[in-house]
């Protein structure tokens, strides 16, 4: 059996990043993701890596931009308000088509909001956040093990598609502890001929840039980029189906909400309600095909979210509004109880 250790979600991200070959971490502290920086501060100096606490989030994301341009595996982490500050840099990194890993351990918003868990940055992560036409690969872990495995996956996908991978976690998964192992981790290595590594006078220099002086060139770059995004949408959606075989109702939930929802699904099944759950693991690309297939099977969907209802829009789009979708939610740092989700399932079964 693989060696098991007991880790906090935030620590698991940091350790996984190091194992994935990340030796450059730039960040700025914010609750509830501080353990990532603390872990990096402790470990990086011992393994010849760089831990740097920048003067701000804006500085740290631009350090990520610079390091990423050299082709090394690099990351930053923050929580909701800090990610807003990084938005400009995220857009520049996307516009330069270079890989990076960004972690958002979400807290309640908007504004300074609070420090309790939330999923209300779904729009920001999946629809942009920064300016311009771009996408990020958005991975939503639902356990400490996934905090680790999706971090490694995130680095691999970022290198493969020259994109930013975002780990969209929440305060609870960041803080909670579970036993995990790292031994099944697959570290992929990609050639990076575009990287700024010094020409030594032997080759033409590379350019990493997001500024285009000619609009037709900028347009062409955008079209080219979206061709790549299409491949990601085709190849990379990840999701989990739970008790869906004979389901007449489908709960859709990601991250911490999916754990609460699973308990509610079990409780509803005990009452004889045929309900299942689809858990998107990639939020972009969204598991559209799985949802579209479920729309032909179930009578209705329930989107369970720690927000005022953001993913629900993608559920409606994916299912082409073929079946009703209701929302079961809490916001501002509060979490739905299994009983609240169970009540929503009962209502769905009553056709309400």
């Amino acid at each position, binding site marked *: 059996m693989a060696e098991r*250790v007991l880790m906090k979600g935030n620590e698991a991200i940091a350790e996984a990043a190091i194992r994935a070959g990340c030796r450059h971490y730039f960040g700025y502290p914010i609750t509830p993701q501080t353990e990532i920086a603390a872990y990096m501060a402790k470990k990086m100096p011992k393994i010849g890596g760089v831990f740097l606490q920048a003067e701000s989030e804006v500085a740290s994301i631009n350090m990520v931009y610079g390091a990423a341009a050299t082709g090394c595996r690099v990351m930053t982490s923050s929580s909701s308000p800090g990610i807003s500050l990084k938005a400009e840099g995220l857009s520049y990194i996307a516009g330069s088509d270079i890989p990076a890993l960004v972690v958002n351990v979400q807290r309640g918003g908007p504004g300074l909001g609070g*420090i309790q868990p939330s999923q209300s940055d779904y729009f920001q992560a999946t629809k942009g956040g920064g300016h311009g036409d771009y996408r990020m690969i958005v991975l939503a872990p639902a356990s400490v093990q996934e905090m680790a495995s999706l971090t490694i996956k995130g680095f691999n996908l970022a290198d493969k598609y020259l994109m930013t991978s975002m780990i969209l976690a929440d305060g609870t998964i960041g803080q909670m502890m579970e036993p995990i192992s790292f031994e099944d981790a697959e570290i992929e290595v990609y050639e990076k001929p575009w990287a700024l590594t010094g020409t030594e006078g032997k080759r033409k220099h590379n350019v990493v840039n997001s500024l285009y002086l000619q609009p037709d060139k900028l347009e062409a770059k955008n079209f080219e980029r979206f061709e790549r995004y299409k491949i990601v949408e085709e190849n990379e959606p990840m999701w989990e189906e739970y008790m869906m075989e004979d389901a007449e109702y489908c709960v859709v939930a990601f991250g911490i909400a999916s754990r609460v929802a699973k308990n509610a699904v079990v409780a509803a099944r005990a009452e004889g309600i045929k309900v299942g759950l689809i858990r998107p693991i990639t939020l972009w690309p969204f598991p559209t095909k799985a949802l579209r297939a479920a729309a032909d099977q179930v009578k209705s969907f329930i989107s369970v979210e720690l927000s005022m209802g953001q993913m629900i829009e993608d559920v409606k789009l994916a299912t082409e509004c073929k079946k009703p979708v209701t929302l079961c939610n809490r916001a501002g740092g509060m979490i739905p*109880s299994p009983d609240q989700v169970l009540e929503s399932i009962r209502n769905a079964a009553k056709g309400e």
Partner: protein
Amino acid sequence: MEHKRLTLFAGHYGSGKTNIAVNYALLLAKEGKDVVIADLDIVNPYFRTKDSAAVLEAAGVKLISPQFANTNVDLPALPAEAYRLVQDKSIYGIMDIGGDDRGAYALGRYVPTLKEENNYRMVFVANASRPLTRTPEEALEVMREIEGACGLEFTDIINNTNLASETTPETVLASQDYIAKLSRLSGLPVFATSAETGVAAQLEGKLSDILPLQLQEKYFDLPSQKPGNRPLWG
């Protein structure tokens, strides 16, 4: 188990200090003692002593908790009431200290009074399954950092080696060498071994001084992690 008037639990963050402090308080209350537990954690925003408020109250244990615990106020402020633990010698006091050296700074202000009375036990909570304290040497390093931050030396070690819901008696038994070495390196006795109630029952007769821990169910526990659904071990 012989009890001192004051028992302090400190250690690496995530080592299990809060669970142990709460359960030790309940144990003392069961023995008929007048118990006050203080949450001195100025670091951790989630999963605090206050989460066990109902259980503690039902057992007659008084809880002193920072005013802003479990709120959105991320403020490292301690309640004035916490002084009662060091000043009121009629009670048994338990202090739950925040993790690592950063958490231990908060203890410093109570140290002169603690030392003067000299009826305390300063317990290092050790978990060999935590990645930054995987070796006794690393645990000793954390121990020294905490002592440096609060100005109080540890007097005892408690072995809380666990893998949460995956803990088996073997998990605990396999940590005996680790704990023995930590004890040798630090010169401190092992005051107890703590484990979740089910595991603790299976350790009876194999280890002495076992502190069984009643753990709180969490809203995010998966169906497979609920105590009733856990696999039964040897």
